[in-house]
């Protein structure tokens, strides 16, 4: 692993989930940043570059799909991983169409690591 700065953004409105995903994601990144909702996430995205964005779908304000759309429009090279406990087939199609990986909750550490790897193109 190179010593370059690598940062990941984790977006989820559940504080406990945010915490554990951040911990596991931080294993592979030098900087792990959290956002509790869509607007916080956009604020962080607008002011910085990330090597991976991990986001939930359903959040009270902006949902994950809108974050993905923003990414495709403004940071097309940034990989994304959607973690979700509730996705209809239409959502799944849209997530994949927007070029993101998808991981269903509940998941364990191994599944999350594998999903991160897939998202990063491994």
């Amino acid at each position, binding site marked *: 692993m190179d010593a370059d700065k690598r940062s990941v953004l984790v977006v989820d409105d559940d504080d*406990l989930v945010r915490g554990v995903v951040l911990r596991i994601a931080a294993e592979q990144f030098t900087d792990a940043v959290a956002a509790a909702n869509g607007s916080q996430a956009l604020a962080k995205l607008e002011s910085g570059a990330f090597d991976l964005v991990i986001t939930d779908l359903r959040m009270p304000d902006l949902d994950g799909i809108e974050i993905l759309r923003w990414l495709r429009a403004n940071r097309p090279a940034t990989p994304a991983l959607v973690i979700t406990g*509730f996705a209809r087939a239409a959502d799944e199609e849209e997530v994949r169409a927007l070029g993101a990986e998808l991981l269903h909750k*509940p998941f364990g550490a191994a599944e999350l690591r594998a999903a991160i790897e897939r998202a990063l193109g491994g």
Partner: protein
Amino acid sequence: MDPSAGDGLEGTLGAITEVLLSVASGNFAARVPRSGTGDAGDVLAFLVNATVEEVEHLVADLEREREELKQAQDQLVQAAKLAALGQLASGVAHELNQPLTVVRTLVDLMREHPADTLAQRAPDFELLSTAVLRMGKIVDGVRTFARQSAFTRRPTDAIRPMDDALLLLGEPLRHAGIEVRRVVESPLPPIHADADRLTQVFVNLLANARDALLERSGSDRRVAVSVRAVDGAVVYVVEDTGPGVPDDKASQVFDPFYTTKPPGKGTGLGLSVSRGIVEEHGGELSLEKSARPGARFVVTLPVESPHGR
């Protein structure tokens, strides 16, 4: 009856009047006796009988259709209940997925450090504990919804249900950037209530306020909860600065299964269950028109002794 009655109309008219009066009182089997002579009176009797028979069939058809309609309605209500249960179940499943994820990943992480002592892993046990408690709350929520516990009223401090709900939702509300105002006008008489069920009502009202306020961004996001005594009653008001309920929906909000939330996000049963609970206490839950934008729900509970009524 009088053979010299000529065309038979005289006698027939009397019989027709009787039959029509009989039909008017619901006897569709009444018929005008026929002389069989074929005279004007007989022809009229035939026509009246034919008409009454037609009416009898129409009424029978209407009765049958009404019965079918009622059955269809019952089926609709049943289907709606099942749909609501389905929504509830999928909502519960989604909710449970969050703490389940936390438990699974934490257990995995702990297993990856088998040499660590319990003390070293104490923070993770804390998190596990919190996650499991949340799962318990979700299950409790379902149970409360299913109303398996008996309705028991006790003398209760009027503030308690309101404050218990604020305990549960106050932090999440503030965390979401919503200002919470609490106004209590003492003194307040005790109420005779099932405190847990009333708490559920205030939790429902606060949760609705939170969802309404989250729809709007900006700094003026506020929910105010107040209570005061008025003439033998205790009046609670829960109002928010959200978008409010449009006039054309005001009468529907308490309908079972009415919800403005997307599938999986709400069962639409909260307000109808809440109203049921308040009414079980002999009180009223209503949505009041307010000059300010936002929703204003009022809970009125009678102050009565346990031996009253």
